């Protein structure tokens, strides 16, 4: 009796482990199909409960954070007001150039961020797993969000929507190990692929030829090349270090992300789906 039960348990263990392995094997290819639908359903069930927990715990956290950081918050508020004033001034001054750029981009069929519609979303949680850099936001298919859409905020590229349900979306941040973004160094013709590593780690750039002239502090933008997953012109990061290791076939370049990924309260989801 005990043996039969043990055998059944082992069979169940092997069967479920095999199912898991098959799911892992197919998760990449079928993310937009059946698995995508299952993920949306699972996420939709959890998100209202998470919102409730968040609504209960956030005021408590805010109370302590506000009490401890009152001086810093007041000072930051003043700085932000000053920045908003400057930006308003700049916006007026540059509106003419932006309009010209839009028209030129339209002529060249290059998607430019300024010409695209965005949806502003509030962050509900960040990095659900220690092994993935993600952000969950409170906007989903009901607001026109779809898998693959780029996300910007906090000064640059934040990431890309990877899972979406009716009222929430999960965004893979640029720092995630599975994130790969086509980039261009400033106004040069130097292209590369920007890869994430993990939360808090710098971004790496691949496929830049040895001894290419790269400046420290130079900004890397999305290149928007044909078939790219992001529109052109979004700042990804600034160069922190650049060197050519001995006998290497490419440069070793590290970037600091342009977006302040540690303090993302709101982000803009760009209503733009990559061309297939």
């Amino acid at each position, binding site marked *: 009796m005990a043996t039969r039960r043990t055998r059944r348990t082992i069979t169940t263990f092997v069967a479920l482990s095999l199912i898991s392995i098959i799911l892992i094997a197919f998760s990449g290819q079928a993310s937009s199909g059946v698995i995508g639908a299952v993920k949306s359903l699972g996420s939709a069930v959890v998100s209202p409960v998470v919102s409730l927990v968040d609504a209960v715990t956030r005021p408590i956290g805010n109370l302590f954070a506000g009490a401890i950081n009152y001086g810093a918050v007041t000072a930051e508020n003043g700085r932000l007001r000053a920045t908003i004033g400057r930006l308003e001034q700049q916006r007026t001054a540059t509106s003419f150039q932006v309009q010209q750029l839009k028209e030129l981009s339209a002529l060249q069929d290059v998607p430019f961020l300024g010409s695209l519609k965005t949806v502003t979303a509030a962050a509900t949680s960040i990095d659900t797993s220690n*092994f993935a850099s993600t952000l969950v936001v409170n906007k989903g298919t009901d607001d026109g969000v779809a898998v693959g859409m780029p996300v910007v905020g906090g000064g640059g590229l934040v990431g890309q929507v990877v899972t979406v349900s009716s009222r929430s979306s999960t965004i893979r941040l640029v720092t995630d190990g599975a994130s790969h973004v086509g980039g261009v160094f400033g106004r040069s013709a130097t292209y590369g692929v920007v890869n994430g590593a993990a939360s808090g780690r710098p971004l790496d750039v691949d496929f830049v030829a040895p001894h290419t002239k790269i400046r420290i502090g130079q900004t890397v933008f999305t290149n928007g090349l044909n078939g790219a997953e992001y529109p052109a012109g979004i700042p990804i990061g600034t160069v922190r270090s650049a060197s050519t290791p001995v006998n290497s076939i490419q440069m070793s370049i590290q970037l600091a992300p342009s977006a302040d990924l540690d303090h993302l309260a709101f982000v803009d989801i760009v209503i733009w789906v990559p061309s297939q």
Partner: protein
Amino acid sequence: MTGRAALRLALVVLGVIAIQVGLLDALRVGHVHPEIIWLVPASVGLLAGPEAGLVVGFLAGLWLDCLLPTPFGLSALVGTSIGYLAGLLEQRGVVVGAGQVFWVGPGLGAAAGLLGVGLYGVLGWLIGQDGFASVDYLVLTLLELVVTASLMMPVLWSVRWALGSEGGARRPRRRRQAAW
């Protein structure tokens, strides 16, 4: 397992995921935070044996996979393994509570938490998730030890409530009461 017990267990899993996402994800040291989802299959295994433990581990992991951009099925595989291993302990007579010193439950919780993040990291790296190797494991280990040890007993109580008469049914009621 009865339908009512399954429903109550689903509620417990949902509650743990909600606490994880809504509360513990914000409890960061550096860039890592504790993960408590692995306490559920461990508790079910310890209370109801390996078969229940691995099934609940699989389903809870699958649910968690819905929220993550990591390979779908990886959490399910880790949950299955933890539930099964915890169930093997139950089969070998390990009882959390009655007649045991107080740290057995928290100790097993910490072990489940460490096994969960360790297994997840190693399996992920093996299947080509290079970023998994860059996680700050030292801080994560310390954090996981403290938080999972602290929360194991509340999770165990919740799972015992969910399982009803199926959780520890082989032990006499008086001994169980004394244990808690």
